[in-house]
């Protein structure tokens, strides 16, 4: 059960993350993308999901990550990500509800490069009853 007062809170990532060329190469290879000068559109999901996991499983928030499934996903990409980018991440818990015993959490991730917002993404995460 998610702590009710956590809805609406924004959590800044503890550290910034530097994107490496080898990470982009590995992701691109899986989908058959040969241009690795920029990251594929969904590449940053790894950063966002890692941050959601670290926030939502904090004891004071209390989500059970082991029963989680991904309900939906949306990206808005303002600028492509490339190797060497140093990204700061913040995550916001936008909503929470319980339906048929399933917990449904909507979270937003904002990735900044210096002061520039490069990608916002929204994930609906469902903890199965």
């Amino acid at each position, binding site marked *: 059960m998610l702590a009710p007062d956590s809805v609406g809170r924004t959590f800044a990532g503890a550290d910034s993350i530097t994107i490496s060329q080898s*990470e982009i190469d590995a992701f691109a290879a*899986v989908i058959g993308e040969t*241009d690795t000068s920029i990251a*594929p*559109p*969904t590449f940053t*999901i790894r950063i966002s999901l890692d941050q959601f996991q670290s926030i939502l499983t904090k004891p004071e928030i209390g989500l059970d990550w082991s029963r989680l499934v*991904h*309900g*939906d996903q949306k990206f808005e990409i303002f600028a492509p990500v490339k190797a060497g980018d140093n990204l700061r991440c913040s995550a916001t818990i936008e909503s929470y509800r319980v339906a048929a015993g399933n917990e449904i959490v909507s979270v937003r991730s904002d990735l900044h490069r210096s002061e520039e917002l490069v990608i916002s993404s929204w994930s609906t995460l469902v903890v199965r009853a």
Partner: protein
Amino acid sequence: MIAVGTELPEEIVYLDRALLKAYADASGDQNPIHQNEEFALSVGLPNVIAHGMLTMALVGKYVTNWSGGSASVKEFGARFIKPVIVPAGERVDLTINGTITEVNGDQIKIELVATSAGVKVLGMAKAVVIKK
């Protein structure tokens, strides 16, 4: 031809267990439901399933094949309505189609349909691109 109603050419890509392992390594998502059949069955799944985000990444590649590379994508979203089921030793299809549903200046909205073994796996799938 870029007009509302234009259909993008269908593409079929294939998934197997090796691709799921490669995506797990590339994405850091090592959830055993995407690699371990015994575990997947134990949590009530019909078999090992693909990462929803792998399906979405492959559909993203379909979009960028048409729109001119990764930099062309401005928005991309989908709902994961059914899993792509990947039995051991098999290659399963992901069949992807797209239709232009809106043209607004240089921004083109594409509605996407993705099926595997005849079952629709994504819902509300759409992308907004600026074609290069």
